[in-house]
């Protein structure tokens, strides 16, 4: 650039008081490449903007410096002004002589000298700038949602309601996730199925939702706006359109396995429906449990199926789709109970986890809502609940707090007291964390009015004695040792990441934190975005959460996806990295530096940048040993010139 204009703002007295703007303009007029300088009272006001526009046209300026307030304030303003005068906006730069100079110094002469240096650095920068155009990218207009728990359901419905097509992929035979297993939900005690089922039905009926259950995402390539995904739909061996839910197959099937939905409290058959309200409402033949399909070893179910819904020749189906955005809502799992040997987990049948207790409380559960313990079906008259089982224990288990267990334990104890009015409920806790609307009131009610004994302390040992379970602990408030004989022990077990997270993180190229939950782009400001543009997170897949939070995140992720899909074209900053093919040696050092997977060494042995993915951090530039990688308009040579004038004598 050789026809640069420098405009120095007084900002009323804000700059003028400590910086002699006239002197700045005068000195800069001597600077190489500068053909026009002026100072003005308020450049950001309309007359000031007009002054800049006129000067650009009149003096045929090919670069502009506005020496004024911080670029965070008015960079967009002045770049727009430049554009309106026909100058490429990336040839306009802001010199911050207010926040970084006039406001922080007292001595007018020295502040003026500093302002001059600052402005000179920006002149040197503009001299090296190239005109740039924002990247505009076409995109697909569908959204992929992975995981059909309440988070994924909410996200899918919100995106679909906004008019975009959704592909909802669920691994299990039915959507619903863990919420389908819950009895009643804190803090209002609504019946979980009753509030969930209508949403599940809505998903199945929504014209914009394509539901793929018993399916998994196996391949993903591409980038924001343009992801190519490959989904494997596993064979259920039952045609859902023909299956009329008569259940005849189930009756004749000779093979039983533990029911996942009932968490092993009862068995299901190899051909089964996970729960009555399952969506899609159809039976599924579990190939692994079946006596044998290839070759066929039994054939009992097909024999009795009147509508001929069973098809042993079904094969996995591969479905390919182009999507613009992806929402990951794969939820959680429970910390394995067998890892809690100190509490008798996995060894004592009457030591169960929270979800098993939900099933015992549920009217549709294996005991029809009567609380009966697994070992002998007796109604337990004393139940001990142990909070933080597997949580907040960095030495042996998970270091983090699972957040929801205090609340569901209070709920469990309360519902148990309602179900067994003469029963005794004892809760061991470290502290009660009840942050949330109506939560403190809920736990206080449970403690004060439901006659639940809360003991503060840790349980050291749980063992079986005859048909009872003995719990040893310490009440740390009274420093007493406590020994309780219980009929049933319920562990409020830690929430773990879903076991498929790790594999999925590789398919999607998004990262998991140390605990295995998906990592958000920013813990405070970008909680539903992954670090990969166009891939969003919702629900317990990102960390332990309860339903209200999970649903909020589902909606939030949907808005993010919709905001992307509604755009005519995706616009991306052009201030990205550029690789000089003639200089690049193909070492690939840059590739590993990039947090966004924007770089790859191509077939010709040189690094190639995917401009859409590059965020312009410059990590690769700093690492490149040859200087081939440079950020557009922030090159090494520009910085060297800038440094030079910043340090010039005089």
């Amino acid at each position, binding site marked *: 650039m050789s026809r640069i204009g420098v405009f120095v703002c007084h900002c009323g007295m804000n700059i003028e008081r400590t910086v002699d703007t006239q002197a700045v303009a005068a000195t800069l007029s001597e600077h190489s490449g500068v053909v026009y300088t002026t100072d003005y009272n308020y450049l950001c006001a309309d007359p000031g903007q007009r002054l800049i526009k006129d000067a650009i046209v009149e003096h045929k300026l090919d670069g502009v410096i506005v020496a004024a307030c*911080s*670029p*965070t304030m008015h960079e967009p303003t002045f770049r727009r002004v430049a554009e309106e005068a026909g100058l490429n906006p990336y040839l306009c730069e802001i010199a*911050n002589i*207010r*926040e*970084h*100079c006039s*406001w*922080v*110094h*007292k*001595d007018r002469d*020295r*502040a003026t*000298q*500093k302002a001059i*240096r*600052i402005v000179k*650095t920006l002149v040197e920068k503009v001299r090296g700038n190239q005109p740039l155009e924002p990247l505009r990218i076409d995109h697909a207009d569908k959204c992929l949602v992975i995981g059909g728990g309440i988070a994924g359901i909410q996200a899918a419905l919100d995106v679909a309601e906004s008019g975009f097509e959704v592909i909802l992929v669920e691994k299990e035979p039915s959507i619903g996730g863990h919420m389908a297993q819950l009895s009643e939900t804190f803090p209002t005690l609504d019946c979980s199925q009753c509030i969930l089922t209508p949403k599940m039905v809505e998903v199945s009926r929504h014209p914009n939702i394509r539901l793929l259950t018993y399916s998994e995402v196996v391949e993903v390539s591409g980038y924001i706006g343009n992801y190519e995904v490959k989904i494997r739909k596993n064979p259920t061996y039952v045609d859902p359109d023909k299956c009329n839910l008569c259940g005849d197959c189930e009756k004749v099937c000779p093979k039983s396995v533990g029911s996942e939905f009932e968490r092993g409290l009862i068995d299901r058959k190899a051909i089964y429906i996970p729960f009555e309200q399952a969506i899609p409402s159809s039976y599924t033949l579990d190939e692994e449990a079946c006596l044998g399909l290839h070759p066929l070893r039994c054939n009992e179910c097909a024999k009795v199926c009147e509508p001929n819904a069973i098809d042993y020749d079904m094969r996995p189906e591969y479905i390919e789709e182009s999507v613009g955005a992806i929402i990951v809502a794969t939820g959680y799992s429970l910390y394995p109970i067998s890892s809690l040997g100190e509490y008798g987990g996995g060894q004592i049948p009457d030591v169960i986890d929270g979800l098993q207790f939900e099933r015992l409380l549920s009217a549709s559960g294996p005991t029809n809502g009567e609380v009966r313990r697994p070992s002998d079906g007796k109604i337990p008259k004393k139940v001990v609940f142990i909070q933080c089982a597997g949580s907040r224990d960095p030495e042996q288990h998970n270091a983090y707090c699972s957040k929801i267990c205090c609340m569901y334990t209070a709920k469990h104890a309360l519902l148990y007291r309602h179900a067994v009015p003469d029963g005794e409920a004892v809760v061991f806790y470290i502290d009660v964390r009840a942050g949330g609307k109506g939560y403190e009131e809920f736990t206080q009610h449970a403690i004060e009015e439901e006659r639940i004994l809360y003991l503060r302390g840790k349980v050291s040992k749980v063992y079986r004695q005859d048909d009872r379970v003995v719990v040893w602990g310490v009440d740390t408030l009274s420093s007493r040792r406590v020994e309780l004989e219980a009929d049933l022990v319920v562990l409020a077990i830690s929430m773990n990441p879903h076991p498929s997270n790790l594999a999925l993180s590789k398919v999607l190229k998004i990262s998991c934190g140390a605990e295995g939950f998906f990592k958000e782009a920013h813990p405070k400001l970008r909680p539903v975005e992954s*670090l990969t543009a166009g891939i969003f997170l919702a629900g317990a897949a990102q960390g332990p959460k309860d339903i209200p939070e999970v649903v909020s995140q589902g909606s939030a992720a949907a808005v993010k996806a919709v905001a992307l899909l509604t755009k005519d074209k995706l616009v991306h900053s052009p201030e990205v990295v550029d690789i000089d093919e003639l200089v690049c040696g193909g070492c690939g050092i840059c590739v590993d*530096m990039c*947090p966004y997977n924007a770089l790859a060494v191509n077939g010709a042995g040189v690094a190639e940048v995917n401009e859409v993915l590059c*965020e*312009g*951090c*410059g*990590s690769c*530039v*700093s*690492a490149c040993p040859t*200087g081939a990688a440079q*950020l557009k308009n*922030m090159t*090494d040579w520009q*910085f*060297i010139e*800038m*440094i*030079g004038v*910043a*340090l010039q*004598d005089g």
Partner: protein
Amino acid sequence: MAKPNDNGFEPKIVAFLCRWCSYAGADLAGVSRMTYPDNIIPMRVNCSGRVDAGMVMAAFERGADGVLIGGCHPGDCHYVNGNYKTRRRVILLKRALAEVGIKPQRLHLEWISASEGVKFQRTVTEFTRLIKGFGPSPMSEDGKN
């Protein structure tokens, strides 16, 4: 060797500030009208991870008496981990500076968030005082004669 502090020596200091945290922290110092020595010339970089050996060495070669790098606190980098890369690089650079006879303390890395105007002020004030005490960098003196 120059005397510490009021020796009339006005050092030249280049500051590379990441736009998301330290540059914004410097803005906040301004908005809050804090005062600090005028020896530093700030330059905005996208991320402290952009500041490489070439830029730091160029500054010393062209007469800087000190170089300050400001980045986001660990875990807060807008680009995930640029600041960790910088932290590693600065350790190596300090060694390289010592080898060419420049006091490694003339290069300083500080985490300054967008809300830490006070920390920006304090950092610049203390760093300037330190560099004043050191006197001119051997390289900048070389440059003069």
